């Protein structure tokens, strides 16, 4: 039996890596992927807690999160396409018309 804590710590590590990736990466798509990574970390925590608590609702939440992630992905990628079209770049650092 794996202690719940292990899972949660793993989720924290993955979440942290997601945050790290968000800052580190320049490509919009990859940055978006790091968000997905963070959401996955959340899912892991939900399932782990669900198992620890012996309640199913945690898993239901995971389903919802996945749906939301899908919806976000659809819109997000739409935006990314828009940006790529408008700017001919996928580098977030190049998209800085709005500032100061």
């Amino acid at each position, binding site marked *: 039996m*794996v202690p*719940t*804590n*292990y*899972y*949660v*710590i*793993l989720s924290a*590590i*993955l*979440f*942290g*890596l*997601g*945050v*790290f*990736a*968000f*800052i*580190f*990466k*320049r*490509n919009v*798509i*990859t940055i978006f*992927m*790091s968000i997905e*990574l963070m959401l*996955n970390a959340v*899912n*892991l925590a939900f*399932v782990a807690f669900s*198992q*620890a608590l*012996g*309640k*199913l*609702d945690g*898993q*239901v939440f*995971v*389903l*919802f999160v*996945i*749906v*939301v992630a*899908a*919806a976000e*992905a*659809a*819109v997000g*990628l*739409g935006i*990314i*396409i*828009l940006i*790529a079209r408008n700017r001919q770049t996928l*580098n977030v*650092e*190049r998209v800085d018309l709005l500032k100061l």
Partner: protein
Amino acid sequence: MTTPLLVFFVLSALAVIGAVNLILQKHPIHSALSLIVVMVALAGLYLLMGAEFVAAVQIIVYGGAIMVLFVFVIMLLNAGVEEHTSLSKLAGPPGLLLAAALAAFVAATIARSGASVQAATQTGALSSTKGISEMVFKDFVYPFELTSFLILVAILGATVLAQREKS
């Protein structure tokens, strides 16, 4: 070391390596593949915890549909190797240090508070897909219905954003 623990370590190592690889890879397609590795590893962990339904959804929806969408977009936009600019002063070492600090803090806090997670009592119920569906359609029917509208929003949004000008 028990078998589940061994499996856990293997899968979690896989997940972490995948995540790190996502960061290290220069080409988005490689990053996407690394992410899929993470997702698969997580699906394995879900199985390990006995959450088969979630694991399946993870593979099908996440690993399958969503990541395919990613790859599709990468291909569509013909995204090349990541351009390594450093225009942001903050996002250099200081920002990364902050991110690392945040991650470390969250992980450490969770590690220290392990006792506060309530102990597992009944694991058997977890495998019940029926239970899940009952919950979705009974207890959580309202958010569930809302997610349907959410998907509508997504569809609508995607078309609004990505469609070519009519003129």
